[in-house]
């Protein structure tokens, strides 16, 4: 098996997110007027290139899942009063560009097969009353003109492809272990031949030994089908392992983005540095190493601090950090940091 090169040189844009905002309005008062908003995603720029895996990490509540949902465009149907802003442009192979942010159902249908999702919880994301064949065949029924037999054949070959037996097609989800269910979820996402898969914590619920199997499978599939992943996870060592690039989120903003090496080995943003230093190492000899401690709790996205969202916990915060959102600075090619003071972090 060939190894992916450590510094990938993928250039073709597949998805470009510009100024994406997702606000959930909060109502109050006698007349239920809007009194505020949960700024789950508060203006992020992110580019996903064809064939690359971009890791999305960040504290819980930082908006990772919401970004994923925005990409697969399910926020409007799920929460009709959600406020969306900015653009999510899908670049087709033939050069067409379409903004899918909040796109209506009918027009979104053309893009659904291209963008698929794999969920964290393999237990609740599969309808227990459908057979595996029905589960995997459903997107095919919706988005392709395949006949019954063709669909069946596709389902079985997909099962084989994700490492399950063809005969499993007639079984129900509860008959499988967590890892097998996640394989079924992946097969379902693959069924429409997507170009990009948003994977929201796909291995978090799995056993350690099974995590490795699923990570390997996902990497193989990416190579074989030229897939892009938006890989959301909180386990940084796995994100580093699988990602070409990593984006770090904090309270609805991307605070740092760069190649996996840049972000994991040479983090620059004070939050990323604290995060990376907090990752436990499976090596007892490294115990005494220096940690950057963060004081205080994460503020909620409902009452975000002014200026930089991180300033309430930041070890190098200045008075000026409260004024304006931090300006994005370039550390080196492809590595940017939303903090003007990053050089002071030693």
């Amino acid at each position, binding site marked *: 098996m060939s190894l992916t090169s450590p510094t990938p040189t993928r250039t073709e844009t597949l998805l470009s997110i510009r100024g994406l905002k997702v606000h959930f309005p909060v*109502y*109050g*008062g*006698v*007349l*239920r007027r809007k009194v505020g908003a949960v700024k789950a995603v508060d203006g992020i720029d992110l580019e996903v290139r064809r064939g690359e895996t971009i890791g999305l990490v960040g504290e819980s509540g930082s908006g990772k899942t919401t970004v994923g949902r925005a990409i697969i465009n399910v926020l409007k149907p799920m929460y009709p009063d959600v406020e969306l802003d900015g653009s999510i442009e899908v670049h087709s192979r033939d050069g067409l560009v379409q903004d899918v942010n909040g796109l209506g159902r009918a027009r979104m249908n053309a893009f659904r097969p291209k963008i698929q999702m794999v969920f964290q919880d393999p237990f609740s994301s599969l309808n227990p009353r459908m057979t595996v064949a029905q589960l995997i065949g459903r997107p095919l029924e919706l988005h392709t003109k395949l006949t019954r037999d063709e669909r069946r054949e596709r389902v079985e070959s997909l099962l084989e492809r994700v490492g399950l037996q063809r005969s499993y097609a007639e079984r129900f989800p509860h008959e499988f272990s967590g890892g097998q269910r996640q394989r079924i979820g992946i097969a379902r996402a693959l069924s429409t031949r997507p170009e990009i898969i948003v994977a929201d914590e796909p291995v978090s619920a799995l056993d350690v030994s099974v995590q490795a199997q699923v990570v390997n499978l996902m990497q193989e599939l990416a190579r074989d089908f030229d897939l892009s992943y938006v890989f959301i996870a909180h386990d940084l060592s796995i994100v580093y392992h699988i990602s070409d690039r990593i984006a770090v989120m904090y309270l609805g903003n991307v605070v740092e983005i760069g190649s996996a090496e840049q972000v994991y080995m040479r983090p620059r943003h004070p939050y990323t540095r604290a995060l990376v230093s907090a990752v436990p190492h499976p090596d007892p000899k490294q115990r005494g190493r220096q940690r950057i401690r963060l004081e205080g709790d994460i503020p909620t996205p409902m009452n975000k601090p002014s200026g930089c969202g991180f300033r309430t916990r930041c070890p190098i915060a200045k008075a000026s950090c409260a004024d304006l959102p931090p300006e994005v600075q370039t550390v080196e090619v492809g590595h940017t940091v939303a903090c003007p003071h990053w050089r002071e972090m030693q």
Partner: protein
Amino acid sequence: MGTYFARRMLLMIPTFIGITMLVFAITRFVPGGPIDQMMLKLQEASMESGTDIGGSTMEIPEASLAALKERFGLDLPMWQGYLHWLWDVVRLDLGTSFKFNEPVLDVIVNRFPISIYFGLIGFALAYVVCIPLGVLKAVRHGSKLDVTSSLLIFAGYSIPGWALGAVLLVFLGGQLELVPLGGFRPEGWADMDFWEKVRGQAYHTILPVLAYAAGSFATLTILMKNSLMENLGQDFVRTAFAKGLPERKVIFGHALRNSLIPICTGLGHAIGLIMAGSYLIEKVFNINGIGYLGYNSIVERDYAVVMGVLVINTVLILLGNILSDFLYVLVDPRIRFE
């Protein structure tokens, strides 16, 4: 929080209007209204007296018809009629009963204490019996006590309250003559001394109250049991055991407090419903309460009374719901209505 309850109060208004408007419209469209009944009475009267007012087909003079219509407010288009009615309600004037020929408010107020009396006693009885019973059943889940009480409770649940009442009445009242056959109070009430009154009243109360409460016994006991069982399986109960608390403290200090939350909040709803009385039970026991009144007024098309009972019940139930929310806030610190 204040704004939440203010909003709930305000929301009562459109709900109230919606319900009353619907029923008002129905009373207008369903045949057999007061005018029809008047005419029927006139017809009967004329047939009995042998005088034929207007040939074979009965006619009422235009003028008296108009007067009748005016009296019942039927001369106006429906929406105007409704607004008039609503305005009267706001001034606490519920109109005049066509059957009793007295103000509806008086008719209702006369019967209200009776329904409240039975309602509240039944309600209190249900809570006093069901909560301890539910707790006991949860703690001794699967024991003989649990199984037999479940059988009894479900028997009570599957028989409607009025039917149970009727059976008990026939057996205990008719056969054994242990209890009176009905009525709200014993005869000769005025001449009794205090203890006789108490005894008499108690005899008259026991069966109707049982009938009132039998249905809610099952739901309430099982709700209590399930709620406690669920909480006994919660992580915080394990924590309490791990602290070294005695079982009694774990159950009563930790689990029970949490499991009373759904019970408390049910209180408001229950009060609203119970006050509304029950026609069939009142009928079986020959008690002249609100349920009986409401039913009869529908049968007899005494629309002013129908609407009056509806007003009272709607307001009670809506207030009961708000009371429930309020109790929720009181017993569960996590709930903060915005």
